[in-house]
């Protein structure tokens, strides 16, 4: 059976693994990518592809902001199939209470150098004529963007391959320190191993505090110009960070194709990936509360996926206690498309000791006692 060696093996070619592979290869390392199925075909393919800055915590802000800047830097190199478009984000407030939140968000963003604009009711109506009348206002963040995640992952992998990374179409079966036994019978010996397999990382490392969090998405036929921004209700933050077993929030994305992608739902404790009509009903009903004109828009497909959710809504990036030479890069919940590039920067720092502008400690898996004392 064949045996290969490399400096770093990256397990998983979702967008996080793909970004790590590219960054490690660009740092001059010999990289091997291990993916059993389609590149960008897991949780990545189920994601919306919204590159967005979030401010739930300073650590979340730092990682999303850095990542968004990295996406912007890459934007001119991306292939057309990545469908990068700087649509901007429009956060919607329905009442005065939410408007207060918008003001706080505006202050937080602008004090940190992000261009953001407060909109009153008229401003929101002008920005998105298909929203219902009578909304309180909103926050426009023009620099944020939208990408098509599967092709973004493919582009990142191809960038790594151009820098001599190898792609192994197989699954890791067993580890002997840093030698990996693959499902095709071959072995791969690596100086370091990065686990970027999303929820799958718990198969080998059950102490990782990740739970699958199911989401549904709905995509429409092409209606160019119907929506212009990624439109998100402020309640989305509550839905994303809450511990509720089942929640929905209005989140609509205009794609470069003219299609619209409608989210979002979050469910714990569901392991079946089937589309659940009652969740689609709730999402659609929520959307009509903001944009009733969507009622007549033609829907062509629905699908689901599982986010890798952590208790504090921050990813797990860094060395794994009890696993010398192994690093994890998982637990990105619904922000993996954005934070893939920042994660890759952190992983390079962990593996090579190169400096990063990001604080390593905030994302270490050892911040959770069950990992630290595994």
């Amino acid at each position: 059976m064949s045996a290969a060696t490399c400096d770093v093996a990256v397990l998983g070619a979702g967008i996080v693994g793909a970004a790590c592979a590219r960054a490690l290869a660009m740092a001059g390392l010999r990289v091997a990518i291990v993916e059993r199925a389609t590149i960008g075909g897991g949780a990545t393919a189920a994601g919306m592809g919204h590159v967005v800055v979030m401010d739930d915590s300073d650590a979340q802000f730092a990682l999303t902001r850095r990542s968004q800047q990295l996406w912007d830097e890459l934007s001119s190199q991306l292939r057309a199939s990545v469908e990068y478009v700087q649509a901007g984000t429009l956060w919607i407030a329905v009442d005065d209470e939410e408007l207060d939140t918008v003001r706080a968000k505006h202050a937080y963003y602008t004090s940190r150098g992000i261009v953001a604009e407060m909109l009153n009711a008229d401003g929101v109506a002008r920005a998105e004529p298909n929203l219902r009348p009578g909304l309180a206002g909103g926050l426009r963040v023009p620099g944020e963007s939208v990408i098509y995640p599967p092709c973004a992952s493919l582009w990142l992998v191809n960038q790594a391959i151009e820098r001599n990374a190898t792609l192994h179409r197989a699954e890791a079966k067993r580890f002997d320190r840093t030698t990996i036994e693959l499902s095709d019978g071959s072995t791969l010996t690596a100086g370091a191993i990065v686990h970027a397999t999303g929820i799958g990382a718990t198969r080998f490392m059950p102490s990782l505090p990740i739970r699958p969090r199911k989401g549904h998405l709905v995509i429409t036929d092409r209606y160019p110009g119907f929506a212009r921004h990624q439109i998100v209700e402020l309640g989305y933050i509550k839905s994303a960070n809450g511990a509720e077993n089942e929640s929905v929030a209005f989140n609509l994305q205009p794609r470069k194709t003219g299609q619209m992608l409608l989210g979002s739902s979050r469910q714990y404790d569901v392991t079946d990936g089937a589309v659940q009509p009652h969740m689609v009903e709730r999402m659609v009903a929520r959307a009509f509360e903001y944009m009733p004109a969507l009622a007549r828009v033609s829907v062509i497909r629905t699908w689901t996926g599982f986010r890798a959710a952590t208790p504090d809504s921050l990813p797990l990036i860094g060395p794994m206690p009890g696993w010398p030479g192994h690093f994890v890069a998982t637990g990105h919940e619904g922000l993996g498309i954005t934070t893939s590039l920042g994660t890759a920067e952190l992983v390079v720092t962990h593996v090579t000791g190169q400096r990063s502008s990001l604080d390593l400690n905030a994302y270490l898996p050892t911040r959770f006692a069950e990992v630290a004392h595994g």
Partner: protein
Amino acid sequence: MDKRIALTVNDEQVNAPEHCTVAAVLLASPGVATRVSVTGEARGPLCGMGVCFECRVTIDGEAHQRSCQIPTSDGMVVATRGTDSYPREYEQYLSEQIVNKAYDVLVIGAGPAGIATAVTAAQAGQRVAVLSDDPHIGGQIWRHDHAKPLGRFAADWRDRLSRSSAEWIASASVFASPKPGVLLAETPTGPMRIRADQIVLACGARERFVPFPGWTLPGVFGAGGLQALVKAGMPIAGQRVIVAGTGPLLLAVADYLRSRGANIRFIAEQTSRVKLARFAGDLLLREPMKIVEAAGFAWRLRGIPFRPNCWPTRADGDSRLQSATLTDGSRRWTEPCDALACGFGLVANTELPRLLGCAIEHGFVCVDADQRTSVPNVFAIGELTGIGGLDKALLEGEIAGHVVAGRFDLAAALQRRRTKAFGFVARLADTFALRDELRQLPDAKTIVCRCEDVTFEQLRTQPDIRTAKLHTRIGMGPCQGRICGCATEFLFGWDAGSVRSPIFPVAMKSLAGGE
């Protein structure tokens, strides 16, 4: 004479006969393609039966409507170019309540098989509804003809249906099944939730298309597709038509089009003379009535060359078809024409059976002698269980009608003939199996997925259908892979992939549920 009505097409007044479809009216206006593809190609209708979504237009401000499924009405406003104005009047639409219905037996599909079940079960006292995506009953083979009454046999069945207690639900697309025994359908008057103790699937078949250079030009149709469009009012008199592909359908199509004044240049049948002769010999021995039928075609089609061992290799024209190139394996020649009607056999419409979880083998729904599928209280009949034509469809429809009514003795009496019908299914499949050379037809730039304009070149290096979908967008358009899925199965051996609701594009309102 037909009453004429007035429509507006792209800001111009157009007069059309009543009872046509919008697609037929557009095809009567020279130079009007129904849509522009995502890479800017002009496109016209292909399938004629609501499957391919190439005939999408904006009707009365509503984008993405299948013009082949929508009858014209006076004052209708049709736009074939993309629209930037979208309907804003949603209040009434949003307040529409879902309509709830309940039956003993629900039949999906109103072709011969579905009609036979509905009539049989209703006569036995069951509360029956029969539903179809089409505005008229008849399915494909007994499709409503705007200019000509149905044949006597078909009219007899249709009359039996209308005299029965069975309810007819027109223009209803089933798109989801929230739980066993419950189906959701979209109708012109809003969404409908239908509960039924027993469901009989009679979804029929569609044509298989094999991509070749130029097959996306307006003027290239399915064979059954062109017939359906002409029945819906598309003028064909005097037009030069080549009928190509495979199967007995080609003869029926040529015969019909000729009766409507088409100038049929010839019929190109891809299968070999040897296989055809063996098929004819078998028929003579086992199904003499089918030979009589074939002889009828032969008589009416006398003078029209029938070329076995012959298939199209490309279509050419400047934004619409002007000529087709054909080959017999050695020689290659180009023939000017106005329409190329081209179907490469039939494939069962298994989307709904798959959504319900019915077991499928080799593209057909698995059933027992009572027409039961692997899912309790769900039956399948007609082309869904094997391509066998009218006789088999009626027989299976009657069997299912007896079984759902509990009349097992009557069903059993028919089952011997059913075995014989499946012998014909196997002989058809063998005789008209597609030749390998057809896999070589596409060139690098040939579009395989017409919704998303994905080319052969983009696909041939893909390892499987899922990777191809995610990385090239094949099958991600409104036809949901109904056309390209059959092509890639033939070209690359990819399976059909998964189905999820909605199995038909629906208005978002229809997904909102409600009581």
